[in-house]
């Protein structure tokens, strides 16, 4: 009986305690590493916020519309603080990963490896979204100004449509980069985008034949005409 209890209970417990005893130092080391990382992250955050203020990042973001966009997303922090916070979490994450690797648990090591290999995809997706956002804003604004100057009544919707199309394209590319629902997203995008283009072509080409003709005549008429419907010479 005693041997049975030893075998079933005592020995496994002893093994667990031994493993725990072997693991505890690694755990403590990991905790220390992570704590050090948090302290370092906090210091880097302070430094980055200070540098951002010296470089006037806040003013630049206000001018370019980034601050306004963030406020629309209910982000109340200034861009400088946001950048500082990003660095804080980035360094914290790095030290968290380091702390986990110090513990030397095989399953955790494998998960970490897959996560680290996936990180560049996240980074690229964020870059694609950022570029898409800036490009969408720029092209939307260019379309708005051009269509207002041309006197098009649908200037606002046209501009929003172009901005939306660019952002949609950026989102699709980001999802593709992340490998999320690749074929579904691409198929959906192709259907929607292709359908919209086809619809516009049919509407304009078939339904607006006369309008298209008069539009082209107005657009390509001789430069001698002012295009403003009057005889003003502006130079």
């Amino acid at each position, binding site marked *: 009986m005693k041997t049975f209890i030893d075998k079933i209970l005592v020995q496994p417990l002893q093994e667990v305690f031994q493993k725990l005893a072997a693991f505890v130092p690694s755990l403590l080391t990991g905790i220390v590493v992570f704590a050090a990382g948090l302290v370092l992250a906090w210091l880097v955050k302070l430094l980055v916020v200070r540098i951002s203020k010296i470089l006037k990042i806040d003013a630049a973001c206000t001018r370019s519309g980034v601050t306004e966009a963030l406020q629309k997303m209910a982000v109340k922090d200034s861009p400088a603080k946001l950048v500082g916070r990003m660095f804080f979490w980035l360094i914290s994450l790095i030290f968290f990963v380091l702390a986990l690797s110090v513990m030397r648990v095989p399953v955790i090591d494998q998960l970490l490896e897959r996560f680290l290999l996936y990180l560049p995809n996240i980074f690229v997706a964020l870059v694609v979204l950022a570029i898409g956002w800036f490009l969408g804003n720029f092209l939307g604004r*260019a379309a708005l100004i051009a269509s*207002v*100057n041309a*006197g098009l009544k649908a200037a*606002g919707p046209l501009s929003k449509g172009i901005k939306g199309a660019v952002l949609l394209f950026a989102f699709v590319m980001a999802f593709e980069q992340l490998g999320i629902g690749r074929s579904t997203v691409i198929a959906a995008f192709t259907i929607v985008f292709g359908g919209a283009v086809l619809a516009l072509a049919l509407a304009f080409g078939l339904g607006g034949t006369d309008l298209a003709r008069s539009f082209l005549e107005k657009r390509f008429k001789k*430069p001698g005409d002012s295009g403003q*419907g009057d*005889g003003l010479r502006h*130079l």
Partner: protein
Amino acid sequence: MSPGGLRPSIFVARPGHRPYNGLAEYASEVMLGNTANPIGISQAKIADLKNVDIVVGIPSYNNARTIGHVVRAVEAGLTKYFPGRRSVLVNSDGGSSDGTTDVVRAASTDFDSVMLDHRIGGFHKLVTPYHGVPGKGSAFRTIFEIAQKLEAKACAVVDSDLRSITPEWVELLIKPVLDEGYDYVSPCYMRHKYDGTITNTIVYPLTRALYGKRIRQPIGGDFGFSGRLASFYLTKDVWASDVARFGIDIWMTTTAVANRFKICQAFLGAKIHDAKDPAADLSAMLHQVVGSVFDLMEDYAEIWRTIRKSEPVATFGFVYSVGLEPIKVDLEKMIEKFRMGVRELAPFYRSFLPEDVLAFLSDLAAQPNRGAFVYPDAEWVRTIIHFALACHWKLVSREHILKSLTPLYLGKVASFVIETWESSAEEVELRLEGLCRSFERQKGYLIERWDGKA
């Protein structure tokens, strides 16, 4: 053959290239018109021409219809008013495909019908393509270079599409330089009261307030200048920039004024030409012209900041009125474009226009009564100042800033037309004087914000 037995010498650049066996062969190839290098042609021709007094340049690109008249007028002007002076006409061509250069070579004046007494003069024609960035500025650069090499004392440039040019234009552009010691002669035209609205509402008053000289047509297109000033122009490194493409006129005027050359104006009468605006598109025109003015503000900030008031410049020529064709103005369309611009572009304007200007624009756009549609000078000046500041501080895309000025400009023009519809040309000129004074009064406002102190 012109009176006095002098035959114009004409040299033509042709494609093709082979090496020359010494200068003699090169010179004979030049005489036969078989050389490949147009600059080399100029070099050979210049070697023959020494102590040239006057260079008149005509930049051209596909102007066969009109350039013949211009050449004849210049030739008659040089022969009539500057007999005994050595003169060269330079046609700087941008690769015309309609036979422009052939027209230049063939153009000659029947002096018997133009003048009662025969004059003897030295007149040469030089036809050369220009190189560099396509545009009027590159054509002018070639003319400046030739004038420098020929050590010309006085120069003039005239547009190749002028229909109203007379021989007297040559006298008026050259004589102040040759006889009175001026360095720069700006043109002054008799125009319809609603002609040149970009010049009247922006370029003239702004340039006057900035640089202190009341030059009425700073982007006239036909100028006189000294050889000294031509050489000075060549020292500037602008020939790969927008100056070479479309900003040469305002650049020449501003550079001469800002560098304290002796400036005057010459009244030339009506300017009638084949209307070839930089672009038929108004927003492109504003982008180019106003953009050039704003760029020059960056270059000469240290100079215009110190100037506090403007002064008139000497004007040569007999000022007279001419009957001008009435102009049709579509006020409804302009006001509608203004309203649409303010409505749709308000979020964009908010990134660089102050709240009080935005509030004024919104109120004006909501004004239903056409008679009460008034864009006061003070508000217009502040609008232009903030557009200049937006470009200076690079708040957003420069092209977007300049093109978004279009609806506001149309609003100002509409307001101006409504206000002066019953006014004579003289009354409109007085009204513009008020606008200029408004620009001058608010210069301090501009300077404070330019330096970032407000």
